[in-house]
């Protein structure tokens, strides 16, 4: 017993975090009964099945021919026709689905990029400069975090219809450039990770304030910036109400709205059901890949800034 308690302690001295993770399990294994381990792992496996089965089903269903879809086992492959199905989806009505994917990539990709830069500048300024009305400004922006996107959709529609700009790209693109959460996270992260000394040193070297931000501060704030980008990307990609009430012209639709409209037509055009399923799969792959690829950044960004 003495030996088992001593070793996690010494490990703690070096890396306190890892010692509590899987690294210490062989030590505490003696203390934790096999029963509680088994129960814990069983819960994990059941939860994994719950979370992944629908996505697995979507993948399997997308790979089937129309005949196999209803006649073969739903959770396992039959004739693998995924690429034929994708080709059929892309062919349908002059590649309108590709157009929707491109629109989503534009709204979410460019929109989140600009939103991140704008929010980072504002958050950095609030963290690093003292000016009159600073706290008031921050509190107003913080109030913006509590205003959900759906609550703004109707007011935005009223405003855009005043200037005759509904049913344009701008009606969906421009509102998604605002990320109050991004300002909040940037402020907290900049305050914690950009030391005043570095800004002073850059000043002594003769660098301008704006240049210092773009060359020095953004590098130090990188995890927060990736987090802001990702969550804004997801928010725009998932946004449904705003395009729903703004857009009439099908060629401007993002992929979520396009698939929604198709899904409402399934009862009249049964063949479209297969396209909805394949389209759904294709619309989530970019997001899952982005999250997997950038996980190191957003996980630390969430841990450091999300909770203060």
């Amino acid at each position, binding site marked *: 017993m003495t030996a088992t308690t001593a070793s996690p302690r010494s490990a703690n001295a070096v890396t306190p975090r890892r010692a509590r993770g899987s690294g210490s399990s062989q030590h505490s294994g003696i203390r934790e009964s096999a029963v509680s381990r088994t129960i814990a792992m069983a819960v994990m496996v059941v939860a994994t099945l719950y979370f992944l089965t629908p996505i697995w089903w979507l993948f399997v269903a997308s790979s089937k021919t129309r005949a196999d879809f209803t006649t073969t086992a739903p959770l396992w492959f039959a004739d693998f026709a995924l690429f034929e199905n994708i080709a059929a989806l892309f062919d349908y009505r002059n590649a309108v689905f590709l157009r929707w994917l491109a629109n989503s990539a534009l709204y979410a990709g460019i929109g989140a990029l600009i939103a991140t830069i704008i929010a980072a500048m504002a958050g950095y300024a609030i963290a690093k400069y*003292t000016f009159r009305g600073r706290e008031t400004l921050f509190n107003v922006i913080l109030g913006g975090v509590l205003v959900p996107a759906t609550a703004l959709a109707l007011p935005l529609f009223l405003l855009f219809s005043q200037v005759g700009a509904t049913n344009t790209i701008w009606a969906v693109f421009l509102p998604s450039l605002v990320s109050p959460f991004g300002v909040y996270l940037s402020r907290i992260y900049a305050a914690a990770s950009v030391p005043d000394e570095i800004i002073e040193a850059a000043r002594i070297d003769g660098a301008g304030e704006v240049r210092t931000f773009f060359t020095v501060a953004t590098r130090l704030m990188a995890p927060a910036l990736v987090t802001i980008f990702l969550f804004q990307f997801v928010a725009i990609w998932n946004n449904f109400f705003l395009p729903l009430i703004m857009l009439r012209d099908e060629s401007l639709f993002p992929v979520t709205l396009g698939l929604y409209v198709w899904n409402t037509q399934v009862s009249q055009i049964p063949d479209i059901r297969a396209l909805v399923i394949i389209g759904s799969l294709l619309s989530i792959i970019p997001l899952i890949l982005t999250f997997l690829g950038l996980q190191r950044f957003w996980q630390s960004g969430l841990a450091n800034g999300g*909770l203060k």
Partner: protein
Amino acid sequence: MTDTAVRKSRGIRHRGALAVFLVPFGALFALFYVIPIGYAVYQSLLVVERDGTFGPAVQVFGGLTQYIAVFENEAFWSSIGRVLLFGVVQVPIMLGVALILALLLDSPLVRGSKFFRLAFFAPYAVPSVIAAIMWGFLYSPNLSPFTGVTQTVDFLSAESVLWSIANVVTWVYVGYNMLIIYSALLAIPSEIYEAARLDGASQFRIAWSIKIPLVVPALVLTGIFSIIGTLQLLAEPQVFQSFSSAVTSTFTPNLTIYSTASIPNISLAAAMSVVLALATFVLSFTVLKLTQRRTAA
């Protein structure tokens, strides 16, 4: 004192840079947050009047007429009641599951926690519309992979469809909430557990007496965001209208607003939006204050 004086002068010295940093966000925030809200409030104070039955429609100031209409609108209030019922059941279940999974991931009982973390988070990458379409198929009596279940239990009936939608929302957001709670658990220094471990406390005991009290702020945060999300429920029920006739055009407050706006009765819809936004704000603010008082005491 000197420090603030220096800082103040610095702020004035860098006025140009401050403008570069603050004006883009400030302008967009004003244009697409503040002004629309203000305009919605203005619009909600108007009423449409006509000269005779066929005269041209003119918008005139109507005071609180639209708000009186909102308070007399039964469909609107029953949709609010429906999402409140939804929230009272779904939010605690979702956060409870998220908390349990986060605690298990943080405990030494589970191997391969990195894989499980990503597996649980994956549904967050699925847009609500797509998640609802997918589950719509899974609930279907004929197309579901679990027809044995879906042919005996009708997930799309008037009684159960609200809870079928609750499952979709839970499926998407458990992983996200779990990750926020898990991040809070990681931030607890491990020395705090050491004494309890040496005293022979079980993992369950450590979780209950040490970890959970320390992640209460994270639970409050996720709770508030969940309340906001619940009151704003829209995409999932909108999609479910294709699967179930039980989902009416006034099923949730936002659906009511959407169908009112498309009548079109813009002023009434604007008044509903304002009432809903205020209700959301009051509710999340109350939760925040209540939990702060409890943790302070």
